[in-house]
């Protein structure tokens, strides 16, 4: 159930606002003068402060208030936003997050430092948020205020009123305590205090009155001029200044303050371009999504899976029925089940852009820390993957990016010396390829140093000194545990995430990782991950007396094996398909089929990445909606199979792992060539 406790809701809200704030700050890093972004940052801070105070997060609210003040200054044009200030603001944002989510971990010394840094970063001379006193036209007022006993119960905060008065100018505040009863008689929710305030301000009387505009009817209020304006009075007579009224009465008619039109205009201008853009972003967010607990989605997926299986049984039964109506309804149910499947599948898929977005901060912080300039380019952010996979990719990708910046990209001076642009580029891209998703990280730095890697590998006993290795093989050594040294696992890489852990994480997702490089031009990391869909379009085939499923997305075509082919003669393991030689695997042999082979064997040509292979089967049965069930640990290690499914007649069929089989075919081909 989504939380009903407002505090929990606040925490979620705060998380979203803080994420938005980070993105806004990073955008501001590129365009520090954009008023819409500054405004967006201010509003996020304002909301966090306000709600935080409401729900008991006083420390967070108090700290946020400082940051908010700085941004208020900036948006009023009284301070300039520099990249340094943005960096401090990002750290302040992190601190705010800590104060809300884990206040016990917040370090007061760090907080002090941040606050100091915030003030220092403001352009000199504008640190004081108070409106400088204008000498001309100032007058001294005496304000006497007493609120009714039940004022605080009714939601009025007397201190805020006093503060408002003080913000109008220099003031001396004297509390009046004559009506405070003895301790035993005090009702803590009652207001016993009154105040006498001497206020020096150039503001008109109406503004003083406005402070009390909503409580005026219930309180005692006297506003009187104490003395006339200062010596150098140039006497700018303000049209609406009333003559000093007697102490007892105030003519507080409810006139429309002439200032109203101006601020009103401001408010309207606010509502147009500046607001609208941000608003569009926010509204699409507000109206386009709802929160759902992840396990509820899993349940939904399971139900849909069962529906698909049962529906395929219905299809079989209906196919052999002569009742036209039954067949028509079965067809309709099939159509509905497929649509439901597609919609439900779509729910768990998230675009990888949500992950890529987080890296902007990483790149920003790291490049600053290391004194490098890095531009992050992202492609294919709309490429969708299962939510759980995306979450597991976070750590490995962060590590790989850190590596690129730390070891790949050179310092600006070095880059210029090599004839490159001073800012390095890191390109993150993702795309679908058959049954896989390919994610690449490309940098234009100095590339992998073949010799150094080789030397270190030999030194660590990972390869023999005289072995000849291709680049691809050599680079795989980087992923072996024991390759990383203390100097590799720097403070930046921290958390013990080494390249070996990266590889293990990717392999746990049934994926593969490769490195390639061009000296001085850059390096490329390629991740290949299987799409972990729960329900796929499958092709059902028969090998011997057993049935298997192949993912349709990986299939290029089906052809017949030439009848004159006698299985097993050397040189016959290739097919010539329109001029291309495609290796093939006889699944009958691979799966040790015992029944006699069908006279005409079929070859299902599959692809994984750029590689192809033909899989020889006895019979191609047809399409099948395949609900993927994962294999237990007893069978999960068998790489030929990526899972199992239940067919319409209740039998279990194994699902073939295409990338593995294709690779297998390549190895077989190479062995053949070596033997030839």
């Amino acid at each position: 159930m989504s939380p009903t406790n407002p505090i929990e809701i606040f925490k979620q809200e705060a998380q979203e606002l803080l994420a938005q704030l980070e993105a806004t700050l990073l955008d501001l890093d590129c365009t520090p003068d954009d008023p819409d972004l500054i405004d967006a940052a201010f509003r996020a801070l304002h909301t966090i402060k306000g709600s935080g105070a409401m729900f008991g997060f006083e420390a967070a609210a108090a700290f946020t208030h400082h940051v908010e003040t700085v941004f208020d200054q900036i948006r009023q044009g009284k301070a300039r936003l520099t990249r340094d200030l943005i960096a401090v603001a990002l750290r302040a944002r992190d601190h705010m997050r800590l104060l809300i989510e884990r206040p016990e971990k917040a370090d007061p010394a760090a907080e002090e430092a941040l606050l100091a840094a915030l003030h220092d970063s403001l352009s000199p001379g504008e640190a004081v948020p108070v409106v400088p006193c204008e000498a001309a036209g100032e007058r001294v007022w005496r304000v006497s205020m007493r609120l009714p006993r039940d004022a605080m119960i009714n939601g009025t905060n007397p201190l805020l009123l006093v503060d408002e008065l003080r913000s109008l100018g220099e003031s001396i505040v004297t509390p009046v305590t004559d009506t405070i009863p003895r301790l035993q008689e005090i009702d803590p929710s009652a207001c016993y205090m009154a105040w006498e305030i001497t206020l020096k301000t150039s503001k008109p009387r109406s503004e003083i009155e406005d402070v009390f505009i909503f409580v005026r009817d219930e309180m005692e209020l006297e506003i009187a001029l104490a003395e006339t304006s200062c010596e150098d009075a140039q006497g700018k007579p303000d049209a609406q200044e009333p003559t000093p009224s007697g102490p007892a009465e105030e003519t507080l008619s409810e006139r429309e303050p002439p200032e109203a039109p101006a601020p009103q205009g401001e408010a309207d201008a606010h509502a147009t371009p500046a607001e609208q853009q941000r608003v569009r972003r926010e509204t699409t967010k507000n109206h386009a999504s709802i929160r759902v607990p992840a396990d509820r989605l899993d349940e939904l997926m399971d139900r849909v899976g069962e529906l698909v299986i049962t529906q395929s049984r219905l299809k079989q039964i209906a196919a052999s029925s002569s009742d036209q109506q039954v067949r028509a309804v079965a067809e309709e149910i099939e159509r509905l089940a497929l649509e439901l499947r597609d919609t439900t599948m779509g729910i768990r898929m998230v675009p990888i852009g949500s992950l890529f977005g987080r890296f902007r901060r990483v790149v920003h912080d790291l490049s600053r820390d290391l004194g490098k300039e890095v531009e992050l380019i992202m492609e294919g952010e709309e490429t969708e993957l299962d939510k759980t996979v995306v979450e597991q990719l976070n750590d490995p990708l962060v590590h790989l990016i850190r590596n690129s910046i730390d070891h790949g990209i050179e310092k600006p001076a070095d880059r210029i010396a090599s004839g490159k642009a001073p800012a390095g580029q890191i390109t993150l891209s993702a795309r679908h390829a058959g049954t896989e998703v390919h994610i690449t990280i490309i940098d234009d730095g100095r590339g992998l140093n073949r010799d150094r890697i080789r030397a270190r590998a030999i030194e660590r006993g990972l390869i023999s000194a005289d072995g000849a290795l291709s680049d691809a093989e050599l680079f795989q050594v980087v992923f072996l545990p024991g390759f990383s040294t203390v100097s590799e696992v720097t403070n930046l890489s921290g958390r013990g995430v080494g390249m070996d852990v990266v590889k293990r994480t990717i392999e746990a997702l049934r994926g593969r990782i490769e490195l390639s490089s061009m000296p001085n031009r850059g390096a490329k990391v390629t991740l290949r991950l299987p799409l972990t869909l729960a329900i796929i379009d499958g092709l059902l085939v028969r090998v011997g007396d057993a049935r298997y499923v192949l993912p349709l997305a990986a299939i290029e075509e089906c052809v017949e094996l030439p009848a004159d082919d006698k299985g097993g003669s050397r040189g016959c393991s290739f097919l010539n398909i329109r001029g291309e030689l495609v290796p093939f695997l006889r699944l009958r042999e691979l799966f040790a089929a015992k029944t006699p082979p069908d006279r005409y064997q079929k070859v299902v040509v599959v692809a994984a990445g750029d590689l192809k292979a033909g899989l020889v089967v006895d019979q191609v049965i047809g399409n099948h909606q395949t609900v993927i069930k994962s294999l237990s640990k007893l069978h999960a290690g068998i790489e030929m199979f990526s899972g199992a499914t239940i067919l319409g007649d209740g039998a279990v069929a194994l699902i073939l792992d295409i990338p593995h089989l294709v690779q297998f075919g390549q190895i077989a081909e190479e062995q053949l060539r070596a033997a030839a």
Partner: protein
Amino acid sequence: MSNWDHIQSSASAAGALKVLSLSLDGQLFAIDAGCVREILDLIPVTEVPASSPFASGLINVRGKVVPLADLRHKLGMTKRSPTIDTRIVVIEVDLDGDLTTVGIIADKVHEVTDIPQSGIEATPRIGLAWPPEFIRCLGKRSGDFLIVLDITRIFSGEQSRQDPSSFQAVDRNCC
């Protein structure tokens, strides 16, 4: 199967061991009744190529894909053809930290019974025809000795690795 739940939940006397007795290759064995979920008649089994002979099949248990294991393989016994008495006992076993549903083949299933504490004896280190590490204890009940198997131990370390014999298929292919 509600019958089954009822039997399982009937309380044992303190210290007694509740077991399900079954026959493998004519020999009487027993397994902890607490891990048994249900007992099925023989149903179609899908063979998994390149799997270990211990767990070479998959079955469909109410829409769930469940591996089928043959304890006889681990106990060094010969495989028998199924008869009308053959049953599949569906159990839950700890596989390397994960609670997994697995089916085991039994030539015949007898009953759930309590072995009193007094009837439990330690496994003799020698003299048994079967690997002692897979036997939890011996149970004496109405004159018979039941060999109580240690299911967790039998299944531990059984993570699948690709069976190397599968690569020989490639050689044959290349003649």
